[in-house]
Structures are given as structure tokens and as C-alpha cells.
């Protein structure tokens, strides 16, 4: 293609400014995450507060370290590392040893963000990269659960929290039996469904009574915080709508085909980290598509893959891998859903012989 003579000055998009800065968006997301953090601290006590602080501090320290290594100005003030830290902490189990949380925070920023060149260049959601790393590294600790609302949770830590770095965390069996809460089983609602075919009730899931990761217990609170961001247009409401909608639809179809084997749709929607993932992780602007059609496809892929992993995979929870897969597909989706240029023909003219 011959170069056009430079009569017009070309600039890449965006051409229209919304008047919003990255910093402003990020600060609001942090604000929206705080109630969820506070609620989980109320549920699980001191250990969770320590975990959230440790993971976030590890993320910030790693971000600072890579700033120094690459000789770039600090990027801590854009709040993005804080978001990564908070989100990551919300996906970990409450009894997760703090040193492993620090490893997760380091992996999230180092592998998920810094290696790609920092904010905006990352392909995958950094928080989920961190979570995937520790899931692969410490499979036992990340699937050890403790009951919520343990008496004395504000005066003592869960024994595993202060496990010695690099060493096996102490056994939780005795601590759990001492603090036995009625009906506690040590398995998440999803695991209980998968291995014992018990479906937890909606009120249990909605109110955050179930055994789960730090921040996935109350779907209601997450939805409310998401609603705030959506109303203020800090996140694209279509992504959570597509994720939750497609998961709901698929679960409904399965449930109608075989109600004995597949749980009712509300269970799929409210259990595990689907709502948290749909509202706060899938909506990460750097790793989700930008075209309006692409957003729906992206959300539908995540919802579908989540349900497929839960129903037919070896894992009990599939949200994390579904979102990472959606992230990987994002450039492809963007490419195939480019809007038609105004005035251009509906279909591409057949190209000549290459």
C-alpha cells in the first residue's frame, strides 16, 4: 500500500474524552470493594483482615519493585495494584496462610501485570493469575475451608494464618472441632453438590452463611456494590448481565432436562464466585472486549464455560478459569466484532488474488 501524503494528521483513538481518569475509575472500584471486605471481616474475623492487608501490601510492594527495576515512575497512585490486591484476597479461603497470600500477591502483579508491561497491557486479569498460581502451587491450603461466625473471631487468629513461611500450615482439624458450628461440613456448597448431591438453599447463599472464599459469600452485597458502579458507569453492566444470564440460561436448560442430576438455576448463580467474578473480575477494562457485540459474546463464553466446568469438569469451581479463558479470547472477539465503518459496504468486497 502506498503511503498517503501527510495532509491529514492521523491519531489513534480515543478521540473523544469522557472526562474520566483511570485514577478516578479505580478509586471508585476500591470504594465499591470496601463493603465486601468489611462484611467478610465481620464474618471471619481478624484472620481475614490480616489476609486482605497482607495480599494488598504484597501487590503494592511488587508493583513498586517492578517500577524500580524498569526505572519508570511509580504507578502506585493509580490504585490498580490496590484493586488487584483486594480482589485477590477476596478469592482466597479465610484460613489461607498469610505468607501464601503474599506469594499470591507477588505472582499476581509480577506474572499477571509487570511482565506484560504494566496496567493496560496485561492480557489476563492479574488477580486471577495470582489466584491460579497459588491454586496450582498450594492445592491443599486453597481448598481448606473454615466456618464463618466463629465465636471469638475478633480476639484470635485462625491457626493457619500465621503458618511459618515455606512450611506446611498446621492442621486445622482440632481448631475446627473446637469451634464447631452447627451444620458445618468443611465443604463449599459446590463441593457438597458435586460429591454429595446436596443443594444449598437460596437464603443460605444470599446471606453469606455458606462456607466459601473470603469475598464470595454474599451475592446480594456484591450485586449491590456492582450496581453502584454500573449506575455511575464505572463498569459495563452488559458483562455481568451476559455472564450471569448465560450461566442462568444454561443451568435452566440442564435443570429442565434432568432435575435430579442438575441443580436449580439459582444455585448455579449464587454459589461459589460467579457473582464476584462476573461483577468485579470479568469487567476489568484492560482484559475485556471493547465492542458492544463483543462484550455480550465475551460474557456468554465465561458463563457457559463456568457451568460446563462445574457440571462436567474435575474441579468444583470454574469461574476463575472461565474468566481467564475469556481474557485470552478478548483480542479475537474484538477483531471479529469490529463495527462497520459508517458508509462502508455491508460485506467486505472479495479480495483479489493474494
Amino acid at each position, binding site marked *: 500500500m502506498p503511503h498517503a501524503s501527510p495532509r491529514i494528521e492521523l491519531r489513534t483513538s480515543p478521540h473523544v474524552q469522557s472526562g474520566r481518569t483511570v485514577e478516578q475509575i479505580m478509586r471508585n472500584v476500591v470504594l465499591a470493594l470496601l463493603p465486601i471486605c468489611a462484611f467478610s471481616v465481620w464474618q471471619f474475623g481478624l484472620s481475614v483482615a490480616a489476609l486482605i492487608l497482607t495480599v494488598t501490601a504484597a501487590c503494592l510492594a511488587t508493583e513498586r519493585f517492578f517500577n524500580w527495576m524498569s526505572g519508570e515512575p511509580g504507578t502506585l497512585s493509580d490504585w490498580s495494584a490496590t484493586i488487584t490486591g483486594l480482589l485477590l484476597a477476596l478469592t482466597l479461603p479465610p484460613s489461607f496462610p498469610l505468607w501464601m497470600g503474599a506469594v499470591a500477591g507477588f505472582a499476581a502483579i509480577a506474572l499477571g501485570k509487570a511482565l506484560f508491561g504494566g496496567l493496560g497491557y496485561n492480557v489476563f486479569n492479574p488477580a486471577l493469575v495470582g489466584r491460579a498460581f497459588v491454586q496450582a502451587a498450594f*492445592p*491443599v491450603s486453597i*481448598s481448606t475451608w473454615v466456618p464463618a461466625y466463629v465465636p471469638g473471631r475478633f480476639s484470635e487468629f485462625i491457626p493457619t494464618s500465621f503458618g511459618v513461611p515455606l512450611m506446611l500450615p498446621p492442621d486445622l482439624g482440632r481448631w475446627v472441632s473446637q469451634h464447631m458450628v452447627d451444620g458445618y461440613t468443611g465443604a463449599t456448597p459446590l463441593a457438597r453438590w458435586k*460429591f454429595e448431591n446436596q443443594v444449598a438453599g437460596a437464603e443460605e447463599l444470599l446471606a453469606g452463611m455458606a462456607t466459601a472464599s473470603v469475598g464470595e459469600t454474599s451475592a446480594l452485597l456484591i450485586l449491590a456494590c456492582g450496581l453502584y458502579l454500573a449506575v455511575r458507569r464505572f463498569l459495563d453492566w452488559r458483562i455481568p448481565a451476559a455472564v450471569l444470564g448465560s450461566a442462568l440460561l444454561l443451568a435452566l436448560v440442564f435443570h429442565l432436562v434432568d432435575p435430579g442430576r442438575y441443580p436449580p438455576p439459582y444455585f448455579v448463580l449464587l454459589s461459589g464466585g460467579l457473582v464476584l467474578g462476573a461483577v468485579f473480575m470479568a469487567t476489568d477494562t484492560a482484559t475485556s472486549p471493547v465492542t458492544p457485540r463483543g462484550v455480550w459474546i465475551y460474557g456468554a463464553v465465561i458463563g457457559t464455560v463456568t457451568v460446563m466446568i462445574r457440571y462436567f469438569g*474435575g474441579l468444583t469451581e470454574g469461574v476463575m478459569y472461565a474468566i481467564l479463558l475469556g481474557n485470552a479470547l478478548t483480542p479475537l472477539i474484538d477483531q471479529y466484532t469490529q463495527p462497520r465503518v459508517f458508509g462502508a459496504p455491508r460485506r467486505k468486497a472479495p479480495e483479489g488474488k493474494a
Partner: protein
Amino acid sequence: MNQPAPAITSSTAMIGTLALVATLCGILIVSAYQGTLPAITANKRLALERAVFEVIPGAASVAEYYASAQGIRPVDEGPAPEGAVKFYAAYDAQGAFLGVAAEAAAKGYADVVRILYAYDPVRQAVTGFGVVGMRETPGIGDKIVTDPQFLKNFEALDVRLDAEMKALANAVKVVKHGTKTRAWEIDAISGATVTCKAVGRGINDSAGRLLPMLVPHLDKLNIQS
């Protein structure tokens, strides 16, 4: 640049060179094979003995056998008959017959789990097993070799044959942790169910094939060959 036209090599020269190099290499390979064969054979023998001694305590020597529909015979008496299953007979230092070990394999969580299990003909039970090869998740699946409760299943796992000696009287079954009630059931480790099931299925399949061919001829093994 003035480059001289490349001389065309004759086919004879090419074939000759290749033949010469191939001959040289052939000699090298054969001499390496001959030179290392005794050491490799000894290594394999040692590895087998170590594995069998581990599952049959007190064993001091091992003999390899084939079991087939025609009966049983030592491995070194010729190629394996059709449908043969290999097994190992173990003897103590005085030459008394102790038991039989055989390999079993089944799909686990990550890959095939290959084990060697011991069969005690007197108690008609599996009395131990050792892992030959597996790639299960460290810390979860590999508990099958360390979990004392799981290993208790193999003090005497019942694999007696039915009245016609055609199949196992009761299929070996892996059950949920804490629900073992009968001698042919294996109490799984909770959290590592898939790997435990692989062990159970492997033993069930292997014993179901081997024992009907082996048990009628057990007396042949009493004398160390």
C-alpha cells in the same frame, strides 16, 4: 562476486560416504549395546526385586512367571503365550514360597497410576501395594502411599475367587471415606477419591484376570525353580 561453479558430486561418492558413516555408527551402537547390556540387565533385575521385596516383606528372591489359560510357567522358557499375565513369585531366604506380586494399572487423576500389589494365596487377599509410576498431584493424590488409614485397607483386602474359580467372588470396590464395611471394600481418602478409585480399579481388573489362571496352579510355585 566470482564464485566457482559448484562441482557436482557423483552419486557414488554420496552413497559411499553415507555407507561409511553408517557402518561406523553401526559399530559404535553395537559395541555400546554389548558393553552396557550386563549392567542394564542387572539394574532391571535389581529394580524388580526392590519393588517386589517392598510389597512382600521377608522376600529374598523373585521368579518371573506367565499365567495363561494353559497354566503357569517361568518367563525364560520362551515368548509369552496368548493372553498371558506376568506375575512374580517371591521366596524367602530358605526358599519357601511367600506370595505373588503382579502389576496393575488404571487411569488416575492426572495419568495412569501403575502399582505392584502383593497377593497372599493362604489368606486369598491382597496384602500390600507399592506405586511403580504415577503423576498424581503431589500433596493430594500421592497420599495413597503415605496415608496410614488408606494403607490399612491393604492389610487383607479380600480377593477370593467364586466357586467356579472363574472370577472374583466380590469385585474390589472403593467406597467413600469412613464407610468401609466389608473385606473387599477400600476406604477412600477424602479429597483424593479419584486416585484411590484408580488403585481399586487397577487391582480389581488385574486380580480378576490373573487369579482365575493362577490359583488352580498355585502348588507349582511351592518349589523354587
